[in-house]
């Protein structure tokens, strides 16, 4: 056992670990003790060095209760959008800011801690079943601390119109806070819902978010999932999304990564029955010395399954991004379709991207495509705009925006699309000008 995890062990010792899930937490911690943090000798972590996380003594103990005002939260809400809201401040559920009363029939949304006592049967069936502690030490670490997070259960044939908006907010975290949010979304047969997970830093503190989300989709269930990562530019964020899909189910993932100093997003989709479909869209925009790593993996386990992946990156400054998209077509998973694309725009000479599609195909009747591009702004387009009286800076921003917007404009839910478009514009050098350009 290495000493650099002592802080987590101390945290664990302080944890009230006396419910039915206690043994699971303990074995997850033991596993984490054995493996420690991943190092870059591991293929899966080759391009992302997590030593900055390891070196710091993060702890989930928060001294004073931090208060966030409603006004503050309003600034990050989707304007005009009626949502079911679950709010966490520094990793702790905030009943005050959440709106979980009067939920539709057939819908459960609660803090994980409440779910552990209220919905033991469902949790025993699903929790830890899709995110594998053995695959990532960060997942094991998260499992050891399962307490706060969001549990969602949508009963069979229930359609939830209102999006469920989960906000993980960090504020005044003293530069040493670790949180381990754990989410579980269980979608019954033929159910439908939209879930937004946002991770937002309200100041520029250094903290560590280690989030895990598990999703189970029964046959014909549809889940649209948005992840908006806007952590503080000094924060570390590790996020792991794991999806198990039943027959004819459809999972749509939109992952937008804007913040964080060191970020790793993992998505693992398992198409475990015929007709299952997964869509993975991702956008990462990086600057300064940000490091953002997106790893995705899809297992086509059964015939007639479909995966479509589209990731785009805009890199500026001395930032570095990693894209690794793995598609595994298992034996006998015939007549599947898997399409993958990763396009990157490098806005500075010092930015760097490592992009790697990985296809492992063990069936013979499949349709797979993949492509990756890395480029600069198109000189012909730039000249065209400038010859039309648009100054160079605006022209560059505009073309950058257009590149990123290819992904966002596909989102057919207007409040989310508009919000994301504004967020993306906000990342660009000439935000005000671009806004003028698009706001009419």
């Amino acid at each position, binding site marked *: 056992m290495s000493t650099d995890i002592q802080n987590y062990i101390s945290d664990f010792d302080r944890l009230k670990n006396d419910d039915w899930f206690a043994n699971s937490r303990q074995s997850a911690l033991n596993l984490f003790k054995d493996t420690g943090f991943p190092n870059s000798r591991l293929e899966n972590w080759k391009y992302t060095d997590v030593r900055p996380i390891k070196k710091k003594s993060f702890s989930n103990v928060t001294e004073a209760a931090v208060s966030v005002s409603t006004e503050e939260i309003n600034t990050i809400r989707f304007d005009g959008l009626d949502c079911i809201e679950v709010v966490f401040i520094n990793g702790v559920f905030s009943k005050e800011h959440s709106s979980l009363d009067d939920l539709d029939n057939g819908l459960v949304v609660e803090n994980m801690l409440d779910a552990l006592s209220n919905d033991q049967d469902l949790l025993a069936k699903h929790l830890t079943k899709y995110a594998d502690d053995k695959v990532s030490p960060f997942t094991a670490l998260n499992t050891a601390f399962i307490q706060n997070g969001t549990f969602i259960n949508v009963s069979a044939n229930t359609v939830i119109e209102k999006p469920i908006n989960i906000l993980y907010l960090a504020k005044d975290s003293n530069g040493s806070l670790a949180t381990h949010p754990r989410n579980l979304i269980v979608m019954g047969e033929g159910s439908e819902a939209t879930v937004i997970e946002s991770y937002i830093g309200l100041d520029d503190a250094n903290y560590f978010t280690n989030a895990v989300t598990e999703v189970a989709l029964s046959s014909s269930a549809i889940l649209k999932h948005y992840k908006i990562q806007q952590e503080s530019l000094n924060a570390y964020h590790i996020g792991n999304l794991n999806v198990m899909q039943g027959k004819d189910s459809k999972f749509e993932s939109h992952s937008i990564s804007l913040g964080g100093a060191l970020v790793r997003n993992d998505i693992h989709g398992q198409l475990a029955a015929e007709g299952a479909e997964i869509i993975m869209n991702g956008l990462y925009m990086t600057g300064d010395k940000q490091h953002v790593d997106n790893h995705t993996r899809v297992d086509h386990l059964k015939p007639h399954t479909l995966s479509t992946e589209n990731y785009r990156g805009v890199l500026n400054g001395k930032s570095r991004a990693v894209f690794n998209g793995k598609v595994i077509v298992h034996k006998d998973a015939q007549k599947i379709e898997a399409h993958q694309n990763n396009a990157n725009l490098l806005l500075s000479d010092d930015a760097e991207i490592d992009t790697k599609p990985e296809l492992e195909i063990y069936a013979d009747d499949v349709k797979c495509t993949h492509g990756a591009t890395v480029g600069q702004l*198109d*000189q*012909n*387009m730039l*000249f*065209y*705009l*400038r*010859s*039309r*009286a*648009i*100054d*160079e800076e*605006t*022209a560059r921003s*505009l*073309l950058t*925006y*257009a*590149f990123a*917007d*290819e992904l966002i*404009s596909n989102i057919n839910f207007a409040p989310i699309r508009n919000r994301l478009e504004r967020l993306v514009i906000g990342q660009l050098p000439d935000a005000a000008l671009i806004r*003028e*350009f*698009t706001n*009419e």
Partner: protein
Amino acid sequence: MLNIQDLHAKIGNKEILKGLNLSVNAGEVHAIMGPNGSGKSTLANVLAGRNGYDVTKGTVEYEGKDLLELAPEERAWAGVFLAFQYPVEIPGVNNVYLLKAAVNAVRKYRGQTELDAVEFLGLIKEKMKIVKMKEDLLNRSVNEGFSGGEKKRNEIFQMSVLEPKLAILDETDSGLDIDALKIVSEGVNSLRNEERSIILVTHYQRLLDYIKPDHVHVLSNGKIIKSGGPDLALELEEKGYDWIKEEAA
């Protein structure tokens, strides 16, 4: 208005313009004809400020200013407009937004107040009629998925909205059907006045039936080798370029 003297321009190591002289007064229409690859688009690009060209010798004076010193957008602000031979498609950038930004950038430069949405729409509506621009093209991304002719028409539409002082039309007539050619020509003619100069690059006399030029020039191998009146275009149509090349040699 425009005075080009002894212009030499290179791309890489290849010299393309080799001592070109051309003078255009306010209110004049000049046609430039010439064989493929002679440097017509290069001239247009150098005037509009595309980078990648090294001007090794010569001067270009526009309204008393050294045009070559200006950035492409500064030239546009000052009233230079190039209708491209091959307009580029720009996915994700809306045609109308671009036009509005362009119009207001020019107005700002001229010290005029910027147009608001309503005023701009009024302007657009009026100009759309002139070039019979289809409304659905307006709200699409710039040139994306436009047919060849639609792209050319869009260039002329932009020109009529921006009302430049010096318009350079690089083979705007190529790829247009007969009706479109008429419409585009009317669009150009409607812009003709004593303050505005137009340079038409074309291969076909036909365009000059609609837009009567004051002067016709032959550009060959990087130089203007012959200039004349409208009759020169007719003569070229009949006899081709060889006789002039011989004459010039």
